[in-house]
C-alpha cells in the first residue's frame, strides 16, 4: 500500500475563489493509499515547501501530489523540495487545478468536483510511479568538422580557440571550398582570397586542429558525447610528411592539359597538382585517372625530380578511427548543372539554352574565376570561345531555382546578390560594356543588400529586365537571347557576347549518403534538416550533430559564418561539462518480450533505437532485439505506442501509469 501525500494549494485566492480547496483536500484523504492530505495558502512559498518536506519526513510518504498550478510552472520547484526530503523527484507530481480548473470555470460546485477528479487521477499516477535516476553520459571533448569550406573553417577555429581538439575532414586535396574560388564578395566587394587564405593557414597551423584533406567519412558509430568516427584518407600518392611543397614535380609532369576543376575547367593543370596556389595543405596529389604512370606504368618523372622522395606510387588509402564527442557537418553545396541530365534524374537541364553546349554560356562560378585576379584570365573578362572581351553580357537569374518543372522549387538565395555583384565587377572591368540582367524578383533582404543591388542598377548602369529568358541560340559569334520585359509587356531580344547564368545552389553530391552514415535527416533536395527551423537552426535532430553553412540550405558567407560560429558555440556548450546529464524520461526495451520487429526503430524520430543481438554463451545468435540508447532517446514515446508486443516502455509514462489514470476517470 502506497503512502501518498496530497497538498492542495489556494494560490492566494486564485484557486480557492472557485475551488473549495478544503473539500478537495478532505476528499483526497479518502483515496486509498493517501496517507496525508492538507491545503495551504501558497504551496510554492518557502513555508509551503517546508510543509511538504516536513510531511514527507513525518509521514514517511513514498509519493507526493501537489494540486496547484501548471506543472510547467512549478514542477521543478516541488520536485526539488521532494528530493530535499529524501524522495525520488520523479515520485512528485502536480495536479493542475489552476490553469485547467479554477481559472476556466466559474461554477464552484463543478470546479471543485473537477479539482477532486484531477487529484484522484494524479494520485493513481503517483502510485504507479517509479524512481528514476538522471542519465549521465561521458563526453569526449574532441569535435569532428566535416567539410573545410568557410563554414567548417570558422567552426573549427572557434572550437579550437576555445581549447578543444578538432578533427577536420575535407574531401578535396585542399580546404577552402567555394569561397576560395570567389573573386570579390558582396556586399562589401572585398577580395575573397584576401580574407579567406589567412583563415585557411590558421587551420593548418592551429595546434588543436588535426586536418585530414583528401579524406572522407567512412563510418560513424556511437552517440552524443561518444562517437567513433572512421576516416578514410585517400591515397595521395605523395607522402605528406616528406613533401616540402617545392612544386618541382608539377613543373615537370608531362601531362599538362587537364582541365582545372578549381577554375571550373577553364584553366589547365598537371596530373600531379595542387588545386590552386594558396592551397592548404600545399602538398600535391596525383590524379591517378590522368597520370600516365598509373594508366600505363610509364613516366615516373615526378618521383625522379622530387628531392625528398615524397612521391609514392604505392601509397594506399588509410583508415583512421577518431573518438569525438560532437560533429559539425559543413559540407556545403554544389551548383546546378544545365547539361542534359540522365532520364531518371530528378532535375533537368536546359534544352532551351542548348544544354550547356554553347561555349559562351557560362555559370556564375565560372564568371567568378574570370573576374578573379588569380583566375585563368588573370582577372580580365574574356569569353571562353575566342578570348575576346564581351561588350554585351546577359545575366540570367533563377536558372534551375524556382523552377518546379526543372526539379527545384526553392530560391537559391545568393544569386540575386552575386549577379548584382557580377554586373558591378563587369562594369568596373569593361567600361564600355553593357550588362543586362533577366530576373523575376530581386531578393535582397540583408543588411546593406538592397542598397548594393540598387547601386548596381543606378550607378553601375546594369539594365535589369523583369522577365525570364525563353531560349538562347548561337548566331555567328553572338548568342541570341530571347526574353521578355513583363514591365513593358514586350518581347526582348539581345545579341549577347557572353551569357552568365545564376544556376541553382544544390546539395553536395553524396550528401544523402553522408547523412545516412551520420543518422541525420535531410529534405527532399538532400539539404540537411535542422531540428527546428526557428529555435534549433543549427542542431540536428540527432543529438550531438550540428549543421553549418550551405549544407543546410543555400546561404551566403555572412549567414554561413554566423551559423558556423553558432554550431561551434553549441559544441562548446556540450564540452563545458564532463558528463552529459539527461532527463530520465526515456524508453527502455524489455528484451524478454521484444520480438525484434523493429517497428520502433522505424518510427523513432531520434534514431535512438538500435538493433542488438542476443547470443548465448557459445556465441550463437539467440535473437535480435531492439535497444534504446538513452543518450539519444528524446522521450516522445512513439515507439511504445507503436510496439505490437508492448515491449518498449517510456519511463514516466508507462502503460501502467496511464491505465491507472484512465481507470480512475
Amino acid at each position, binding site marked *: 500500500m502506497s503512502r501518498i501525500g496530497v497538498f492542495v494549494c489556494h494560490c492566494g485566492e486564485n484557486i480557492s475563489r472557485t475551488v473549495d480547496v478544503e473539500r478537495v483536500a478532505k476528499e483526497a484523504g479518502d483515496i486509498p493509499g493517501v496517507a496525508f492530505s492538507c491545503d495551504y495558502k501558497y504551496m510554492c512559498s518557502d513555508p509551503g515547501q517546508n510543509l511538504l518536506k516536513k510531511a514527507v519526513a513525518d509521514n514517511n510518504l513514498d509519493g507526493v501530489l501537489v494540486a496547484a498550478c501548471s*506543472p*510547467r510552472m512549478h514542477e521543478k520547484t516541488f520536485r526539488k523540495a521532494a528530493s530535499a526530503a529524501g524522495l525520488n523527484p520523479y515520485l512528485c507530481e502536480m495536479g*493542475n487545478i489552476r*490553469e*485547467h480548473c479554477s481559472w476556466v470555470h*466559474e461554477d464552484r460546485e463543478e470546479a471543485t468536483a473537477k479539482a477532486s*477528479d*484531477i487529484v484522484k487521477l494524479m494520485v493513481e499516477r503517483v502510485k504507479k510511479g517509479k524512481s528514476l535516476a538522471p542519465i549521465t553520459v561521458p563526453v569526449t571533448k574532441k569535435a569532428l568538422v566535416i567539410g573545410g569550406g568557410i563554414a567548417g573553417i570558422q567552426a573549427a577555429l572557434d572550437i579550437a580557440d576555445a581549447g578543444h581538439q578538432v578533427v577536420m575532414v575535407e574531401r578535396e586535396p585542399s580546404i577552402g571550398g567555394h569561397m576560395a574560388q570567389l573573386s570579390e564578395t558582396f556586399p562589401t566587394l572585398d577580395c575573397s582570397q584576401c580574407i579567406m587564405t589567412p583563415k585557411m593557414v590558421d587551420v593548418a597551423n592551429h595546434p588543436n586542429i588535426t586536418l585530414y584533406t583528401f579524406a572522407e567519412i567512412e563510418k560513424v558509430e556511437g552517440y552524443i558525447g561518444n562517437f567513433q568516427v572512421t576516416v578514410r584518407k585517400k591515397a595521395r600518392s605523395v607522402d605528406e610528411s616528406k613533401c616540402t611543397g617545392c612544386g618541382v614535380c608539377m613543373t615537370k609532369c608531362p601531362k599538362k592539359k587537364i582541365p582545372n576543376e578549381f577554375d571550373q575547367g577553364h584553366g589547365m593543370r598537371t596530373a600531379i597538382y595542387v588545386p590552386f596556389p594558396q592551397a592548404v595543405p600545399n602538398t600535391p596529389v596525383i590524379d591517378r585517372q590522368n597520370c600516365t604512370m598509373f594508366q600505363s606504368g610509364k613516366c615516373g618523372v615526378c618521383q625522379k625530380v622530387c628531392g625528398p622522395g615524397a612521391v609514392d606510387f604505392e601509397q594506399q588509402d588509410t583508415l583512421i578511427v577518431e573518438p569525438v564527442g560532437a560533429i559539425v557537418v559543413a559540407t556545403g553545396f554544389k551548383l546546378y548543372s544545365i547539361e542534359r541530365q540522365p532520364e531518371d534524374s530528378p532535375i533537368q537541364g536546359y534544352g532551351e539554352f542548348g544544354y550547356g553546349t554553347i561555349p559562351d554560356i557560362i555559370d556564375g562560378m565560372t564568371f567568378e574565376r574570370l573576374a578573379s585576379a588569380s583566375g585563368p584570365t588573370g582577372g580580365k573578362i574574356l569569353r571562353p570561345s575566342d578570348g575576346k572581351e564581351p561588350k554585351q553580357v546577359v545575366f540570367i537569374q533563377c536558372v534551375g531555382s524556382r523552377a518546379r518543372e526543372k526539379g527545384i522549387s526553392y530560391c537559391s538565395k545568393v544569386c540575386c546578390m552575386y549577379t548584382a555583384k557580377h554586373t558591378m565587377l563587369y562594369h568596373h572591368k569593361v567600361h564600355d560594356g553593357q550588362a543586362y540582367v533577366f530576373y523575376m524578383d530581386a531578393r535582397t533582404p540583408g543588411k546593406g543588400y538592397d542598397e548594393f543591388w540598387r547601386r548596381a542598377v543606378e550607378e553601375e548602369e546594369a539594365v535589369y529586365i523583369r522577365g525570364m529568358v525563353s531560349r538562347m541560340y548561337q548566331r555567328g559569334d553572338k548568342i541570341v537571347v530571347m526574353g521578355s520585359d513583363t514591365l513593358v509587356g514586350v518581347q526582348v531580344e539581345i545579341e549577347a557576347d557572353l551569357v552568365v547564368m545564376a544556376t541553382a545552389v544544390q546539395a553536395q553530391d553524396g550528401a544523402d549518403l553522408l547523412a545516412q552514415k551520420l543518422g541525420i535527416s535531410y529534405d527532399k533536395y538532400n539539404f540537411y534538416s535542422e531540428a527546428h527551423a526557428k529555435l534549433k537552426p543549427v542542431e540536428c535532430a540527432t543529438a550531438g550533430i550540428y549543421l553549418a553553412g550551405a549544407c543546410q540550405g543555400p546561404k551566403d558567407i555572412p549567414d554561413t559564418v554566423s551559423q558556423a560560429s553558432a554550431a561551434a558555440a553549441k559544441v562548446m556548450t556540450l564540452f563545458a561539462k564532463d558528463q552529459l546529464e539527461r532527463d530520465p524520461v526515456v524508453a527502455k526495451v524489455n528484451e524478454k518480450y521484444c520480438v525484434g520487429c523493429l517497428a520502433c526503430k522505424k518510427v523513432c524520430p531520434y534514431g535512438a533505437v538500435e538493433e542488438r543481438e542476443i547470443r548465448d554463451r557459445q556465441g550463437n545468435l539467440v535473437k535480435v532485439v531492439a535497444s534504446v540508447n538513452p543518450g539519444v532517446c528524446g522521450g*516522445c514515446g512513439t515507439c511504445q505506442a*507503436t510496439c505490437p508486443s508492448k515491449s518498449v516502455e517510456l519511463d514516466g509514462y508507462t502503460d501502467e501509469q496511464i491505465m491507472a489514470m484512465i481507470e480512475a476517470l
Partner: protein
Amino acid sequence: MHAEKLQHDFEPKIVAFVCTWCTYAGADLAGTSRMQYPANVRVLKFPCTGRIDPVFILRAFQKGADGVLVSGCHPGDCHYMAGNFHARRRFAAFRALLGFVGVDLERLQFSWVSAAEGGKWVEVVTELTEKVRAMGPMKEFKALEDEEQWSGALNTPELREAFESIT
C-alpha cells in the same frame, strides 16, 4: 458577465489526451487568459501524441467517457519532429476500427492546438462537449460490460485471462 448557468439533464464526461508541448500549454494559456469553458473535460498529459496508444482511447470509452479528444501540435511543429505524424497515421487506422466496434465516431475528435491557441482549446472543448451532450450518454461499451456481468461470461479462468489481455 456571468452567463446564466444552464441546467442540463446530462453532463457528458470528456477525456482529453494531449501533448505537453503544444496543447497542454495551449490549455494553460486559456487559463492564464481566464477564458471559460465547460468543466466536463479531464486532461491527461503525454509527452507527445505519438505516445498515445489507441487502447487508451478504447479504455477511456469503456470507463465511462462519453467523448474523447486527442490533441497535439500542428503538423510540422512537433517537439519531437515526427511524433504527431506517426500518431496521425495510427489514429486513421484506429478510427476505422472504432467505427467497426460500433462507436459513433462523432464522439472522438482529433485536433491541433498550439501553445498559442488558448482560444482554440476553449472552442474545441466547448464544441465537443456540446456535441456529445446532444448525442446523449455513450451506451455501447457500458451495455457490453453490463451484459458481461449478467451472463457471467467472464467466470471461467480462460475467459477472464483473455479479457484481461485485451484490456
